[in-house]
Protein backbone atom coordinates (compact mmCIF):
# COMPACT_ATOMS: atom_id res chain seq x y z
CA UNK A 1 0.00 0.00 0.00
CA UNK A 2 1.27 3.41 -0.91
CA UNK A 3 0.76 6.34 1.39
CA UNK A 4 0.60 9.69 -0.29
CA UNK A 5 2.45 12.65 1.15
CA UNK A 6 -0.84 14.17 2.05
CA UNK A 7 -2.01 11.10 3.98
CA UNK A 8 1.28 11.04 5.80
CA UNK A 9 0.82 14.65 6.84
CA UNK A 10 -2.65 13.94 8.18
CA UNK A 11 -1.40 10.88 10.03
CA UNK A 12 1.40 12.81 11.69
CA UNK A 13 -0.91 15.67 12.57
CA UNK A 14 -3.42 13.35 14.18
CA UNK A 15 -0.76 11.47 16.12
CA UNK A 16 0.49 14.67 17.68
CA UNK A 17 -3.08 15.76 18.37
CA UNK A 18 -3.67 12.47 20.18
CA UNK A 19 -0.66 12.99 22.44
CA UNK A 20 -1.71 16.55 23.20
CA UNK A 21 -5.20 15.34 24.04
CA UNK A 22 -3.89 12.58 26.31
CA UNK A 23 -2.14 14.97 28.67
CA UNK A 24 -5.23 17.17 28.71
CA UNK A 25 -7.45 14.19 29.38
CA UNK A 26 -5.25 13.03 32.25
CA UNK A 27 -5.33 16.47 33.81
CA UNK A 28 -9.10 16.57 33.41
CA UNK A 29 -9.49 13.17 35.10
CA UNK A 30 -7.25 14.20 37.99
CA UNK A 31 -9.29 17.34 38.55
CA UNK A 32 -12.51 15.37 38.28
CA UNK A 33 -11.29 12.85 40.86
CA UNK A 34 -10.09 15.64 43.15
CA UNK A 35 -13.50 17.25 43.09
CA UNK A 36 -15.41 14.00 43.42
CA UNK A 37 -13.46 13.06 46.54
CA UNK A 38 -13.28 16.56 48.00
CA UNK A 39 -16.73 18.02 47.54
CA UNK A 40 -18.63 15.60 49.87
CA UNK A 41 -17.04 17.37 52.86
CA UNK A 42 -19.35 20.32 52.23
CA UNK A 43 -22.27 18.18 53.34
CA UNK A 44 -20.70 18.25 56.81
CA UNK A 45 -19.28 21.75 56.93
CA UNK A 46 -19.98 25.00 55.07
CA UNK A 47 -17.42 26.39 52.64
CA UNK A 48 -16.91 29.39 54.90
CA UNK A 49 -16.26 27.28 58.02
CA UNK A 50 -13.96 25.03 56.05
CA UNK A 51 -11.82 27.84 54.65
CA UNK A 52 -11.89 30.19 57.62
CA UNK A 53 -12.47 27.90 60.59
CA UNK A 54 -9.40 28.06 62.80
CA UNK A 55 -9.61 24.62 64.34
CA UNK A 56 -8.29 21.53 62.55
CA UNK A 57 -9.32 18.49 64.61
CA UNK A 58 -10.36 15.99 61.94
CA UNK A 59 -10.20 12.86 64.12
CA UNK A 60 -12.09 14.03 67.20
CA UNK A 61 -15.75 13.62 68.02
CA UNK A 62 -17.24 15.91 66.85
CA UNK A 63 -14.58 16.76 64.27
CA UNK A 64 -13.61 20.33 63.28
CA UNK A 65 -12.53 20.83 59.71
CA UNK A 66 -11.17 24.40 59.62
CA UNK A 67 -8.14 24.78 57.38
CA UNK A 68 -7.46 28.49 57.94
CA UNK A 69 -4.28 27.78 59.98
CA UNK A 70 -3.05 25.54 57.14
CA UNK A 71 -3.79 28.20 54.49
CA UNK A 72 -2.00 30.84 56.58
CA UNK A 73 0.93 28.44 57.01
CA UNK A 74 1.18 27.86 53.26
CA UNK A 75 0.94 31.55 52.37
CA UNK A 76 3.44 32.72 54.96
CA UNK A 77 6.20 30.26 54.02
CA UNK A 78 5.61 30.95 50.33
CA UNK A 79 5.74 34.71 50.82
CA UNK A 80 8.83 34.66 53.03
CA UNK A 81 10.66 32.24 50.77
CA UNK A 82 10.00 34.47 47.73
CA UNK A 83 11.29 37.43 49.70
CA UNK A 84 14.56 35.54 50.04
CA UNK A 85 14.63 33.79 46.67
CA UNK A 86 13.62 36.63 44.35
CA UNK A 87 16.59 38.95 44.94
CA UNK A 88 19.05 36.06 44.90
CA UNK A 89 17.50 34.44 41.84
CA UNK A 90 17.12 37.61 39.78
CA UNK A 91 20.49 39.06 40.68
CA UNK A 92 22.32 35.82 40.01
CA UNK A 93 20.58 35.72 36.63
CA UNK A 94 21.72 39.28 35.89
CA UNK A 95 25.27 38.43 36.91
CA UNK A 96 25.37 35.26 34.85
CA UNK A 97 23.89 36.72 31.70
CA UNK A 98 25.43 40.23 31.72
CA UNK A 99 28.48 40.50 33.92
CA UNK A 100 30.23 37.17 34.49
CA UNK A 101 33.16 36.21 32.29
CA UNK A 102 32.44 33.32 29.94
CA UNK A 103 34.25 30.64 31.95
CA UNK A 104 32.63 31.52 35.26
CA UNK A 105 29.26 31.76 33.53
CA UNK A 106 29.32 28.07 32.58
CA UNK A 107 30.34 27.00 36.09
CA UNK A 108 27.63 29.09 37.76
CA UNK A 109 24.98 27.88 35.38
CA UNK A 110 25.75 24.24 36.01
CA UNK A 111 25.91 24.72 39.77
CA UNK A 112 22.46 26.31 39.76
CA UNK A 113 21.12 23.50 37.60
CA UNK A 114 22.60 21.03 40.06
CA UNK A 115 20.76 22.80 42.86
CA UNK A 116 17.52 22.33 40.90
CA UNK A 117 18.25 18.61 40.71
CA UNK A 118 18.61 18.07 44.47
CA UNK A 119 15.77 15.85 45.72
CA UNK A 120 13.50 17.71 48.13
CA UNK A 121 13.85 14.99 50.76
CA UNK A 122 17.60 15.67 50.88
CA UNK A 123 17.00 19.37 51.37
CA UNK A 124 14.37 18.58 54.00
CA UNK A 125 16.77 16.34 55.86
CA UNK A 126 19.41 19.05 55.73
CA UNK A 127 16.89 21.48 57.20
CA UNK A 128 15.95 19.03 59.92
CA UNK A 129 19.36 17.93 61.16
CA UNK A 130 21.60 20.89 60.28
CA UNK A 131 19.63 24.08 59.91
CA UNK A 132 17.09 23.47 62.71
CA UNK A 133 19.64 22.90 65.52
CA UNK A 134 21.72 25.81 64.20
CA UNK A 135 18.74 28.20 64.17
CA UNK A 136 17.74 27.03 67.62
CA UNK A 137 21.22 27.57 69.11
CA UNK A 138 21.93 30.84 67.36
CA UNK A 139 18.67 32.59 68.15
CA UNK A 140 17.98 30.71 71.39
CA UNK A 141 14.61 29.47 70.18
CA UNK A 142 12.32 26.78 71.59
CA UNK A 143 12.29 25.05 68.19
CA UNK A 144 14.29 25.16 64.98
CA UNK A 145 11.45 23.62 62.98
CA UNK A 146 9.67 26.81 62.09
CA UNK A 147 8.60 29.29 59.41
CA UNK A 148 12.09 30.69 58.90
CA UNK A 149 13.65 27.27 58.44
CA UNK A 150 10.98 26.15 55.96
CA UNK A 151 11.25 29.45 54.06
CA UNK A 152 15.03 29.22 53.77
CA UNK A 153 14.88 25.69 52.38
CA UNK A 154 12.00 26.55 50.03
CA UNK A 155 13.97 29.59 48.85
CA UNK A 156 16.87 27.30 48.06
CA UNK A 157 14.48 25.30 45.88
CA UNK A 158 12.93 28.33 44.20
CA UNK A 159 16.23 30.05 43.32
CA UNK A 160 17.10 27.72 40.40
CA UNK A 161 13.62 28.16 38.88
CA UNK A 162 13.75 31.93 39.18
CA UNK A 163 17.36 32.20 38.10
CA UNK A 164 17.19 30.02 35.00
CA UNK A 165 13.94 31.47 33.63
CA UNK A 166 15.09 35.04 34.37
CA UNK A 167 18.35 34.33 32.67
CA UNK A 168 16.56 33.13 29.55
CA UNK A 169 14.53 36.32 29.57
CA UNK A 170 17.62 38.51 29.97
CA UNK A 171 19.44 36.57 27.26
CA UNK A 172 16.54 37.19 24.90
CA UNK A 173 16.90 40.98 25.16
CA UNK A 174 18.09 41.98 21.68
CA UNK A 175 21.66 43.12 21.23
CA UNK A 176 20.43 46.29 19.50
CA UNK A 177 18.94 47.54 22.77
CA UNK A 178 22.25 47.21 24.57
CA UNK A 179 24.20 48.70 21.69
CA UNK A 180 21.82 51.65 21.49
CA UNK A 181 22.19 52.22 25.21
CA UNK A 182 25.98 52.17 25.06
CA UNK A 183 25.92 54.42 22.00
CA UNK A 184 24.03 56.98 24.02
CA UNK A 185 26.86 56.95 26.54
CA UNK A 186 25.22 54.86 29.27
CA UNK A 187 27.45 52.87 31.62
CA UNK A 188 27.11 49.12 32.02
CA UNK A 189 25.15 49.58 35.27
CA UNK A 190 22.76 52.05 33.68
CA UNK A 191 22.25 49.73 30.74
CA UNK A 192 21.40 46.80 32.98
CA UNK A 193 19.06 48.68 35.28
CA UNK A 194 17.33 50.97 32.78
CA UNK A 195 17.31 48.91 29.61
CA UNK A 196 17.91 45.22 30.05
CA UNK A 197 15.88 44.49 33.18
CA UNK A 198 12.82 46.49 32.03
CA UNK A 199 12.93 44.72 28.67
CA UNK A 200 13.02 41.34 30.35
CA UNK A 201 10.43 42.32 32.96
CA UNK A 202 7.68 39.98 31.82
CA UNK A 203 10.04 37.01 31.77
CA UNK A 204 11.43 37.86 35.20
CA UNK A 205 7.95 38.20 36.68
CA UNK A 206 6.94 34.87 35.18
CA UNK A 207 9.99 33.27 36.76
CA UNK A 208 9.11 34.73 40.16
CA UNK A 209 5.55 33.49 40.02
CA UNK A 210 6.57 30.03 38.87
CA UNK A 211 9.10 29.96 41.70
CA UNK A 212 6.32 30.82 44.16
CA UNK A 213 4.05 28.16 42.70
CA UNK A 214 6.89 25.68 43.23
CA UNK A 215 7.17 26.76 46.87
CA UNK A 216 3.47 26.59 47.68
CA UNK A 217 3.07 23.08 46.29
CA UNK A 218 6.26 21.68 47.79
CA UNK A 219 5.44 18.90 50.24
CA UNK A 220 8.44 17.02 51.59
CA UNK A 221 10.34 20.07 52.81
CA UNK A 222 7.44 21.59 54.71
CA UNK A 223 6.48 18.21 56.13
CA UNK A 224 9.98 17.79 57.51
CA UNK A 225 10.99 21.27 58.64
CA UNK A 226 7.91 23.47 59.19
CA UNK A 227 7.12 21.81 62.53
CA UNK A 228 3.53 20.97 61.75
CA UNK A 229 1.56 22.96 64.32
CA UNK A 230 -1.96 23.54 63.01
CA UNK A 231 -2.24 26.96 64.64
CA UNK A 232 -2.02 30.50 63.31
CA UNK A 233 1.58 31.58 63.97
CA UNK A 234 2.34 34.50 66.27
CA UNK A 235 5.97 34.94 65.24
CA UNK A 236 8.27 33.95 62.39
CA UNK A 237 9.85 31.38 64.68
CA UNK A 238 6.58 29.52 65.29
CA UNK A 239 5.81 26.16 63.72
CA UNK A 240 3.21 25.96 60.99
CA UNK A 241 1.54 23.19 59.01
CA UNK A 242 1.22 24.15 55.34
CA UNK A 243 -1.51 22.38 53.37
CA UNK A 244 0.68 19.88 51.49
CA UNK A 245 2.27 18.72 54.76
CA UNK A 246 -1.14 18.10 56.30
CA UNK A 247 -2.31 16.09 53.29
CA UNK A 248 0.87 14.02 53.15
CA UNK A 249 0.98 13.24 56.86
CA UNK A 250 -2.67 12.37 57.33
CA UNK A 251 -3.85 10.79 54.08
CA UNK A 252 -2.14 7.46 54.71
CA UNK A 253 -4.32 6.61 57.68
CA UNK A 254 -7.52 8.55 57.07
CA UNK A 255 -10.33 5.98 56.74
CA UNK A 256 -11.49 5.74 53.12
CA UNK A 257 -14.66 7.75 52.53
CA UNK A 258 -14.63 9.39 55.97
CA UNK A 259 -15.07 13.12 56.63
CA UNK A 260 -11.34 13.40 57.27
CA UNK A 261 -10.58 11.79 53.90
CA UNK A 262 -12.89 14.17 52.04
CA UNK A 263 -11.52 17.15 54.00
CA UNK A 264 -7.99 16.29 52.88
CA UNK A 265 -9.10 16.12 49.25
CA UNK A 266 -10.91 19.44 49.68
CA UNK A 267 -7.63 20.88 51.01
CA UNK A 268 -6.12 19.59 47.77
CA UNK A 269 -8.76 21.51 45.82
CA UNK A 270 -7.83 24.72 47.65
CA UNK A 271 -4.17 24.08 46.84
CA UNK A 272 -5.11 23.41 43.22
CA UNK A 273 -6.89 26.76 42.96
CA UNK A 274 -3.97 28.57 44.53
CA UNK A 275 -1.43 27.19 42.05
CA UNK A 276 -3.94 27.81 39.25
CA UNK A 277 -4.17 31.47 40.29
CA UNK A 278 -0.39 31.76 40.34
CA UNK A 279 -0.21 30.33 36.84
CA UNK A 280 -2.97 32.60 35.54
CA UNK A 281 -1.14 35.63 36.95
CA UNK A 282 2.10 34.49 35.34
CA UNK A 283 0.30 34.04 32.04
CA UNK A 284 -1.38 37.44 32.27
CA UNK A 285 1.82 39.25 33.17
CA UNK A 286 3.84 37.62 30.43
CA UNK A 287 1.28 38.74 27.85
CA UNK A 288 0.54 42.16 29.25
CA UNK A 289 4.12 43.34 29.62
CA UNK A 290 5.44 41.58 26.57
CA UNK A 291 8.01 43.56 24.60
CA UNK A 292 6.76 43.54 21.06
CA UNK A 293 9.02 43.33 18.05
CA UNK A 294 12.55 42.05 18.24
CA UNK A 295 12.47 41.97 22.05
CA UNK A 296 9.71 39.34 22.23
CA UNK A 297 10.69 36.36 24.33
Amino acid at each position, binding site marked *: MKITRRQKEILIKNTFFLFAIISLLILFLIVLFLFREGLPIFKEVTLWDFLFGDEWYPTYQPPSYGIWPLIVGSLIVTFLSSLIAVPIGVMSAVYISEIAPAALKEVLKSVIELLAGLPSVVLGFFGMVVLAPWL*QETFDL*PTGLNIVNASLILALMAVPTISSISEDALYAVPKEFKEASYALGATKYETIVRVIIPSAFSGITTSVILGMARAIGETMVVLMVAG*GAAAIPESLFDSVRPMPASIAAEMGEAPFGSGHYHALFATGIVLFFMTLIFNLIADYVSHKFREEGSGTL
Partner: protein
Amino acid sequence: MHPIKLLFLGLLVLLVTVQTSLAASAIVVKGSTTVLPIVQAEAEAYMKSHPGVNISLSAGGSGDGIKALIDKSADIANSSRELKVEEINLAGKRAIRPVLHPIAMDAIVPIVNPKNRVKNLTVDQLSQIYQGRIRNWQEVGGDNLAIVVVSRDSSSGTFESWGNLVLHGAKVTPRAQMQASSGAIVQVISKNKYAIGYIGIGYLNRSVKPLTVNGVPATTQTAVSRQYPVSRPLYMVTNREPKAEVAGFVKFVLGKEGQRIVEKTGFVPLKKN
Protein backbone atom coordinates in the same frame (compact mmCIF):
# COMPACT_ATOMS: atom_id res chain seq x y z
CA MET B 1 -7.74 3.98 54.64
CA HIS B 2 -5.25 4.63 51.89
CA PRO B 3 -6.79 3.90 48.48
CA ILE B 4 -3.79 1.79 47.46
CA LYS B 5 -3.99 -0.24 50.65
CA LEU B 6 -7.69 -0.64 49.98
CA LEU B 7 -7.02 -1.84 46.46
CA PHE B 8 -4.44 -4.22 47.82
CA LEU B 9 -6.85 -5.53 50.43
CA GLY B 10 -9.52 -5.82 47.77
CA LEU B 11 -7.18 -7.97 45.71
CA LEU B 12 -6.32 -9.96 48.79
CA VAL B 13 -9.98 -10.59 49.53
CA LEU B 14 -10.49 -11.59 45.90
CA LEU B 15 -7.55 -13.92 46.13
CA VAL B 16 -8.92 -15.41 49.31
CA THR B 17 -12.37 -15.98 47.82
CA VAL B 18 -10.88 -17.56 44.73
CA GLN B 19 -8.66 -19.78 46.80
CA THR B 20 -11.49 -20.72 49.15
CA SER B 21 -13.34 -22.19 46.22
CA LEU B 22 -10.22 -24.25 45.65
CA ALA B 23 -10.80 -25.77 49.07
CA ALA B 24 -8.15 -23.82 50.98
CA SER B 25 -9.12 -22.42 54.36
CA ALA B 26 -9.48 -18.71 55.05
CA ILE B 27 -9.44 -16.67 58.23
CA VAL B 28 -11.06 -13.27 58.20
CA VAL B 29 -9.59 -10.75 60.64
CA LYS B 30 -11.01 -7.26 61.17
CA GLY B 31 -10.65 -4.46 63.69
CA SER B 32 -8.28 -2.05 65.40
CA THR B 33 -5.75 0.01 63.47
CA THR B 34 -3.41 -0.08 66.48
CA VAL B 35 -3.28 -3.86 66.40
CA LEU B 36 -3.00 -3.99 62.60
CA PRO B 37 0.82 -3.85 62.28
CA ILE B 38 1.20 -6.77 64.69
CA VAL B 39 -1.38 -8.98 63.08
CA GLN B 40 -0.16 -8.08 59.61
CA ALA B 41 3.34 -9.31 60.45
CA GLU B 42 1.89 -12.37 62.23
CA ALA B 43 -0.33 -13.23 59.27
CA GLU B 44 2.56 -12.97 56.80
CA ALA B 45 4.73 -15.27 58.92
CA TYR B 46 1.88 -17.71 59.51
CA MET B 47 0.87 -17.94 55.86
CA LYS B 48 4.49 -18.58 54.90
CA SER B 49 4.79 -21.49 57.30
CA HIS B 50 1.25 -22.78 56.63
CA PRO B 51 0.63 -22.83 52.89
CA GLY B 52 -3.05 -23.38 52.21
CA VAL B 53 -4.19 -21.05 54.98
CA ASN B 54 -5.22 -17.60 53.90
CA ILE B 55 -5.70 -14.71 56.25
CA SER B 56 -7.60 -11.70 55.04
CA LEU B 57 -6.98 -8.66 57.14
CA SER B 58 -8.64 -5.25 57.30
CA ALA B 59 -8.63 -2.45 59.85
CA GLY B 60 -11.44 0.00 60.49
CA GLY B 61 -11.22 0.40 64.27
CA SER B 62 -11.92 -1.86 67.26
CA GLY B 63 -15.65 -1.18 67.10
CA ASP B 64 -15.83 -2.27 63.46
CA GLY B 65 -14.02 -5.49 64.24
CA ILE B 66 -16.31 -6.42 67.10
CA LYS B 67 -19.35 -5.57 64.99
CA ALA B 68 -18.03 -7.87 62.26
CA LEU B 69 -17.45 -10.65 64.79
CA ILE B 70 -21.05 -10.33 66.01
CA ASP B 71 -22.29 -10.30 62.38
CA LYS B 72 -20.21 -13.41 61.79
CA SER B 73 -18.44 -11.65 58.93
CA ALA B 74 -15.12 -12.01 60.74
CA ASP B 75 -13.49 -14.92 62.56
CA ILE B 76 -11.23 -12.74 64.65
CA ALA B 77 -11.76 -9.15 65.82
CA ASN B 78 -8.68 -7.12 66.74
CA SER B 79 -9.40 -4.76 69.59
CA SER B 80 -7.40 -2.23 71.57
CA ARG B 81 -10.02 -2.24 74.33
CA GLU B 82 -12.34 -4.59 76.17
CA LEU B 83 -15.92 -5.00 74.99
CA LYS B 84 -18.53 -2.41 75.88
CA VAL B 85 -21.68 -3.48 77.72
CA GLU B 86 -23.86 -2.84 74.62
CA GLU B 87 -21.57 -5.01 72.54
CA ILE B 88 -21.76 -7.86 75.04
CA ASN B 89 -25.55 -7.59 75.11
CA LEU B 90 -25.80 -7.55 71.33
CA ALA B 91 -23.48 -10.54 71.10
CA GLY B 92 -25.65 -12.40 73.61
CA LYS B 93 -28.76 -11.84 71.46
CA ARG B 94 -27.00 -13.31 68.42
CA ALA B 95 -25.74 -16.31 70.44
CA ILE B 96 -22.16 -15.13 70.13
CA ARG B 97 -19.87 -15.60 73.11
CA PRO B 98 -16.84 -13.32 72.67
CA VAL B 99 -13.59 -14.64 74.13
CA LEU B 100 -10.73 -12.18 74.62
CA HIS B 101 -7.17 -13.29 73.91
CA PRO B 102 -4.61 -10.70 75.07
CA ILE B 103 -1.80 -10.85 72.49
CA ALA B 104 0.45 -7.92 73.40
CA MET B 105 0.78 -4.77 75.46
CA ASP B 106 0.81 -1.32 73.99
CA ALA B 107 3.08 0.92 76.13
CA ILE B 108 3.70 4.52 75.18
CA VAL B 109 6.60 6.38 76.73
CA PRO B 110 6.95 10.15 77.07
CA ILE B 111 10.46 11.19 76.02
CA VAL B 112 12.58 14.31 76.48
CA ASN B 113 16.07 15.43 75.52
CA PRO B 114 18.82 13.94 77.72
CA LYS B 115 19.72 17.51 78.79
CA ASN B 116 16.28 17.99 80.35
CA ARG B 117 16.37 17.74 84.17
CA VAL B 118 12.81 16.47 84.50
CA LYS B 119 12.67 12.76 85.27
CA ASN B 120 9.06 12.08 86.11
CA LEU B 121 5.63 13.44 85.21
CA THR B 122 2.20 12.41 86.38
CA VAL B 123 -0.50 11.47 83.91
CA ASP B 124 -2.29 14.67 84.86
CA GLN B 125 0.79 16.81 84.18
CA LEU B 126 1.25 15.12 80.81
CA SER B 127 -2.38 15.81 80.00
CA GLN B 128 -2.02 19.49 80.96
CA ILE B 129 1.17 19.81 78.88
CA TYR B 130 -0.46 18.26 75.82
CA GLN B 131 -3.54 20.45 76.20
CA GLY B 132 -1.25 23.49 76.28
CA ARG B 133 -2.12 24.47 79.86
CA ILE B 134 1.36 23.87 81.28
CA ARG B 135 3.76 25.75 79.03
CA ASN B 136 7.03 25.97 80.95
CA TRP B 137 9.29 23.21 82.27
CA GLN B 138 9.60 25.21 85.52
CA GLU B 139 6.01 24.34 86.38
CA VAL B 140 6.93 20.65 86.52
CA GLY B 141 10.30 20.96 88.23
CA GLY B 142 12.57 21.69 85.28
CA ASP B 143 14.54 24.66 83.97
CA ASN B 144 12.90 27.92 82.97
CA LEU B 145 12.31 26.89 79.35
CA ALA B 146 9.20 26.88 77.20
CA ILE B 147 7.77 23.44 76.52
CA VAL B 148 7.65 22.41 72.88
CA VAL B 149 4.95 19.79 72.54
CA VAL B 150 5.61 17.23 69.82
CA SER B 151 2.80 14.90 68.81
CA ARG B 152 2.09 12.32 66.14
CA ASP B 153 -0.21 13.14 63.24
CA SER B 154 -3.81 12.73 64.28
CA SER B 155 -4.34 9.60 62.16
CA SER B 156 -1.78 7.41 63.88
CA GLY B 157 -2.65 4.63 66.30
CA THR B 158 -0.09 5.94 68.78
CA PHE B 159 -1.82 9.33 68.75
CA GLU B 160 -5.12 7.60 69.40
CA SER B 161 -3.73 5.57 72.32
CA TRP B 162 -2.05 8.62 73.82
CA GLY B 163 -5.32 10.54 73.48
CA ASN B 164 -7.22 7.79 75.30
CA LEU B 165 -4.72 6.97 78.04
CA VAL B 166 -3.35 10.41 78.87
CA LEU B 167 -5.73 13.07 77.59
CA HIS B 168 -8.91 11.03 78.12
CA GLY B 169 -10.36 12.47 74.93
CA ALA B 170 -9.34 16.12 75.50
CA LYS B 171 -7.92 17.96 72.49
CA VAL B 172 -4.20 18.28 71.91
CA THR B 173 -3.18 21.94 71.68
CA PRO B 174 -3.05 23.22 68.09
CA ARG B 175 0.43 24.61 68.90
CA ALA B 176 1.71 21.04 69.15
CA GLN B 177 4.23 20.14 66.48
CA MET B 178 3.29 17.21 64.31
CA GLN B 179 5.67 14.51 63.15
CA ALA B 180 4.63 11.80 60.73
CA SER B 181 6.50 8.90 62.33
CA SER B 182 7.86 7.67 65.66
CA GLY B 183 11.36 7.79 64.20
CA ALA B 184 10.93 11.47 63.34
CA ILE B 185 9.81 12.18 66.92
CA VAL B 186 12.97 10.58 68.32
CA GLN B 187 15.02 12.61 65.84
CA VAL B 188 13.39 15.90 66.88
CA ILE B 189 13.55 15.24 70.64
CA SER B 190 17.20 14.18 70.48
CA LYS B 191 18.05 17.60 69.02
CA ASN B 192 15.82 19.83 71.14
CA LYS B 193 16.09 20.37 74.89
CA TYR B 194 12.74 22.19 75.00
CA ALA B 195 10.74 19.36 73.51
CA ILE B 196 8.61 16.51 74.81
CA GLY B 197 7.26 13.70 72.66
CA TYR B 198 5.85 10.18 72.96
CA ILE B 199 6.64 6.91 71.23
CA GLY B 200 5.85 3.22 71.45
CA ILE B 201 8.28 1.48 73.79
CA GLY B 202 9.89 -0.34 70.87
CA TYR B 203 11.24 2.90 69.40
CA LEU B 204 13.27 3.95 72.46
CA ASN B 205 16.99 4.50 71.95
CA ARG B 206 19.84 6.22 73.74
CA SER B 207 19.51 9.58 72.01
CA VAL B 208 16.43 10.43 74.10
CA LYS B 209 15.47 10.16 77.76
CA PRO B 210 12.31 8.25 78.72
CA LEU B 211 10.33 9.78 81.59
CA THR B 212 8.77 7.76 84.36
CA VAL B 213 5.01 8.25 84.65
CA ASN B 214 3.52 8.52 88.15
CA GLY B 215 6.96 7.31 89.29
CA VAL B 216 6.80 4.09 87.28
CA PRO B 217 9.41 3.46 84.57
CA ALA B 218 8.12 1.98 81.34
CA THR B 219 9.53 -1.50 81.01
CA THR B 220 8.26 -4.77 79.68
CA GLN B 221 7.50 -5.93 83.24
CA THR B 222 5.64 -2.81 84.41
CA ALA B 223 3.65 -2.73 81.16
CA VAL B 224 2.60 -6.38 81.44
CA SER B 225 1.71 -5.97 85.13
CA ARG B 226 -0.18 -2.79 84.21
CA GLN B 227 1.64 -0.77 86.89
CA TYR B 228 2.84 1.53 84.12
CA PRO B 229 -0.17 3.80 83.51
CA VAL B 230 0.24 4.58 79.81
CA SER B 231 -0.20 0.99 78.70
CA ARG B 232 -3.05 -1.20 77.65
CA PRO B 233 -3.52 -4.76 76.49
CA LEU B 234 -4.32 -5.48 72.86
CA TYR B 235 -6.70 -8.31 72.08
CA MET B 236 -7.80 -10.72 69.45
CA VAL B 237 -11.43 -11.60 70.07
CA THR B 238 -13.03 -14.83 68.86
CA ASN B 239 -16.48 -16.34 69.11
CA ARG B 240 -16.14 -19.00 71.82
CA GLU B 241 -12.84 -20.84 72.07
CA PRO B 242 -11.33 -20.87 68.58
CA LYS B 243 -11.36 -24.04 66.52
CA ALA B 244 -9.44 -25.45 63.57
CA GLU B 245 -7.44 -22.87 61.55
CA VAL B 246 -8.45 -19.95 63.75
CA ALA B 247 -7.16 -21.81 66.82
CA GLY B 248 -3.92 -22.52 64.98
CA PHE B 249 -3.38 -18.85 64.20
CA VAL B 250 -4.23 -17.65 67.72
CA LYS B 251 -1.88 -20.23 69.15
CA PHE B 252 0.84 -19.10 66.77
CA VAL B 253 0.46 -15.45 67.82
CA LEU B 254 0.66 -16.38 71.50
CA GLY B 255 3.56 -18.75 70.92
CA LYS B 256 7.25 -18.08 70.97
CA GLU B 257 7.61 -16.96 67.37
CA GLY B 258 4.42 -14.91 67.46
CA GLN B 259 5.55 -13.04 70.56
CA ARG B 260 8.93 -12.36 68.96
CA ILE B 261 7.03 -10.71 66.08
CA VAL B 262 5.11 -8.62 68.63
CA GLU B 263 8.40 -7.30 69.97
CA LYS B 264 9.73 -6.66 66.48
CA THR B 265 6.74 -4.49 65.58
CA GLY B 266 7.45 -2.20 68.56
CA PHE B 267 4.95 -3.56 71.09
CA VAL B 268 5.46 -5.38 74.38
CA PRO B 269 5.21 -9.18 74.25
CA LEU B 270 3.23 -10.81 77.04
CA LYS B 271 5.87 -13.45 77.63
CA LYS B 272 9.57 -12.84 77.65
CA ASN B 273 11.41 -15.19 75.35
